[in-house]
């Protein structure tokens, strides 16, 4: 038998050899890590856990109707992304959504389960309007579970659903805006000068629907059709008083070359052979994060990271774009609170692959962190990847996360699928480092099942995790060498009304002694360390004073003293001194 058939023969022999013999010889093993997260015992509800500087304060399994006990990895009913409003948490799913009451974060209670199939179920909430992204072909306009059929089905829905949730127990779909490529994710966009409408940026990455199913959808290349469904995002305008009238108002060509008007402007150019242009380009965005306070947005668009000016939300303009020199491709983006740094994630393998192997390049499937100059120019500074390998049984790659509002530092809690959650400090974008983590063993001992944390977001004092297979996790930070109780208290003192991860709002801290102490703890770690004991003593003394003129003037004096020290500090410490001075002045009011 020719040797080239040996491979097939090996497979055949092994298969016929059935299950009774010892498993085949192991391939050479990668170096084993001593990190407790490597090689955790598998399990669904009882997997072994490794944890550092956080504690799991609550867990809820997926509710009935949203899991199949015989198929834990059935993505069609898995949890996906999350959004928050007041004491409510909205968890999206490929099968609909669930609403939890989180007024007591240690004991979330399920309020409403709503079945409406159609992945991925990415949710946003604004007031009484819940937006849900749908791209998969089984989705129906009527939320039915019977699915659809064929290439053209008039009952099919792919786009953004809008639900009125003024009655939380009875969500009502009031609009279903169809788009040519469906909606893989979407982004809520607001304008502080406009309280009558909000917008939804739609990122579609799936196939273009036939014209017979949705008029005006063209899958032809731009050279043949300038109205092509590629190379654009859609913008839905939603009148808040009449959401049923939500409609697409623009489909801007954000990849266009501003000089030539070429629609496929981020594609290197022609002359590479007939038929090449239509398929080979940055023609879609995976996810866009807007930061309306600074009128900017970061788009993770196929091979490019792009920066958009959104001062006119209906007409975003591209102002910068980057390629990663290490060939990572980006899927989502986060800004730090000051919008001086932007972080892109490379979802290598799409989330369904084990891309945290010890043999994997640490710059792939990771975060690439850029300095943002003048909020208009990006410059690569560093990378961060989950700093522990995971096994072949665990799908793992950088995924969704959000900023933890510790004043004076840039800290993010991020989901890595079955790689668990990693919390890291990227205050110095060139030198990010991990400060806390949570991980479970694989959900299945025998084969890789798609599971793990889809998103981990900070919201009003806690970190919430949507675990695709296992359900809802709630975490609380605990103090460590990397984070003091004062810093945790300062973060927990920030309260917001609602939160959507791709719609970043600027965190502001109340002027409190806790915030001041948190900043002192940070300064103690740096070159200002020699002053800290004295400042802490002074702060204690001032706090003990009765409220009144003496206390106010002591605070003002302290604020001025700290401000004067700024000249001696650089980088993050300068910023901390500035914040400390502001906090002390604020306390003096």
């Amino acid at each position, binding site marked *: 038998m020719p040797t*080239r*058939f040996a491979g*097939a023969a*090996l*497979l055949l022999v*092994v*298969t016929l050899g*059935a*299950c009774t013999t010892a*498993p*085949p010889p*192991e*391939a050479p093993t990668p170096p084993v890590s001593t990190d407790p997260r490597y090689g955790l*015992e*598998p*399990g669904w*509800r*009882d*997997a072994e856990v490794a944890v550092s500087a956080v504690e799991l304060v609550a867990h809820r399994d997926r509710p009935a109707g949203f899991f199949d*006990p*015989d*198929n834990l990895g059935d*993505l*069609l009913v898995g949890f996906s992304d999350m959004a928050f409003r007041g004491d409510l948490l909205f968890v999206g799913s490929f099968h609909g959504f669930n609403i939890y009451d989180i007024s007591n974060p240690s004991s979330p209670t399920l309020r409403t389960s709503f079945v409406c199939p159609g*992945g991925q179920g990415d949710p946003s909430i604004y007031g009484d309007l819940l937006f849900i992204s749908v791209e998969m*072909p089984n989705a129906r306009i009527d939320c039915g579970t019977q699915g659809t059929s*064929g*290439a053209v089905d008039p009952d099919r829905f792919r786009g953004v659903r809008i639900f009125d949730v003024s009655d939380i127990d009875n969500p009502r779909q009031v609009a279903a805006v169809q788009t040519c490529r469906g909606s893989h994710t979407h982004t809520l966009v607001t304008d502080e000068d406009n309280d009558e409408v909000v917008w939804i940026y739609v990122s579609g990455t799936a*196939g273009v629907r036939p014209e017979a199913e949705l008029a005006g959808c063209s899958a032809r290349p731009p050279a043949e059709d300038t109205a092509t469904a590629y190379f654009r995002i859609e913008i839905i305008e939603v009148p808040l008083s009449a959401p049923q009238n939500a409609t697409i108002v623009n489909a801007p060509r954000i990849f266009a070359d501003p000089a030539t008007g070429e629609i496929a402007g*981020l*594609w*290197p*150019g022609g002359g*590479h052979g007939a*038929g*090449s242009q239509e*398929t*080979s*380009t*940055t*023609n879609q965005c*995976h996810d866009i994060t807007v930061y309306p306070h600074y009128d900017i947005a970061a788009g993770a668009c*196929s*091979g490019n990271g792009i920066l958009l000016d959104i001062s006119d939300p209906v007409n975003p303009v591209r102002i910068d774009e980057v*390629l990663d020199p290490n*060939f990572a*491709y980006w899927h989502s983006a986060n800004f730090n609170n000051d919008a001086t740094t932007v972080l892109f994630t490379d979802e*290598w*393998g*799409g989330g*369904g*692959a084990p*891309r945290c192997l010890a*043999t*994997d*390049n640490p710059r792939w499937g990771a975060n690439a962190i850029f300095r943002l100059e003048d909020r208009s120019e990006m410059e690569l500074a560093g990378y961060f990847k989950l700093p522990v390998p995971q096994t*072949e049984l665990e799908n793992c790659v950088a995924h969704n996360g959000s900023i933890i509002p510790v004043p004076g530092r840039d800290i993010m809690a991020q989901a890595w699928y079955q790689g668990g959650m990693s919390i890291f400090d990227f205050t110095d974008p060139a030198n990010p480092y991990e400060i806390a983590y949570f991980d479970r063993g694989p959900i299945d*001992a*025998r*084969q890789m099942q798609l599971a793990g944390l889809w998103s981990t977001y900070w919201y009003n004092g806690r970190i919430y995790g949507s675990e695709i297979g296992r359900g809802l996790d709630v975490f609380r930070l605990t103090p460590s060498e990397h984070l003091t109780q004062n810093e945790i208290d300062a973060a927990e003192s920030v309260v917001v009304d609602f939160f959507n991860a791709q719609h970043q709002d600027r965190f502001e801290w109340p002027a409190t002694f806790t915030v001041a102490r948190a900043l002192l703890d940070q300064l103690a770690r740096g070159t200002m360390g020699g002053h800290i004991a004295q400042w802490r003593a002074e702060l204690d003394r001032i706090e003990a004073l009765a409220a009144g003129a003496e206390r106010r003037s002591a605070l003002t004096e302290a604020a001025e003293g700290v401000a004067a020290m700024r000249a001696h500090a650089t980088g993050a410490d300068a910023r901390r001194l500035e914040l400390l001075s502001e906090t002390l002045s604020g306390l003096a009011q």
Partner: protein
Amino acid sequence: MIGRSRIVIALATSLVAASCVGGTAPPASAPAPSAEPAGGPARAPAPYTRADVAFMQGMIVHHAQALDMTALVPARSGNASLRILAERIEATQEDEILRMSRWLAARGETVPDPHAYREHMAAGAGGAHGTRMPGMLSPEQMEQLAAGSGHAFDRMFLQFMIEHHIGALTMVEELQQAGGGLEAEIYRFASDVDADQRAEIARMWDMLTVLPRGS
């Protein structure tokens, strides 16, 4: 190369695992006592079509050729960017072969030998997979590539791999035309392949444009 032997062993292991998932053998590692449901293929995979099966079987073979191409890079290219790109393509497609094999095995469908294509190609454009799949290189083109080095190799590699990737995108499109790609895992997998290869094509065009002229 660790990667290649890893595929064979892992394929074998996954086949054994899949065929052992008949409820007759205990799970590979017994978890602590709990109410966890016993192992077994009680899962009934969602409906899929013959087009889905043909897609996965074909793509395994399609990917295998891409790996044959990337295997040529270390000894022939001094281009640092191209070497990184080839590594990424290799790591991605090796893993995707595993994923596709698992999907087929879990459904009792035939898992093709990734390298059987070499015989089919050598024998002419026939064989179990019919005519050559979109974007695949002929044996002559593979020989040409293997004989190259330096900038000439770089140019050939990029041009051939771009065509190869475009071929993969074509296969995804053909799957959709044939009414497949609706089953959840296939949908997700095909979307991932499409997204990653699309981005890779763009980067390869970029690299082609900066190669020295005349190479």
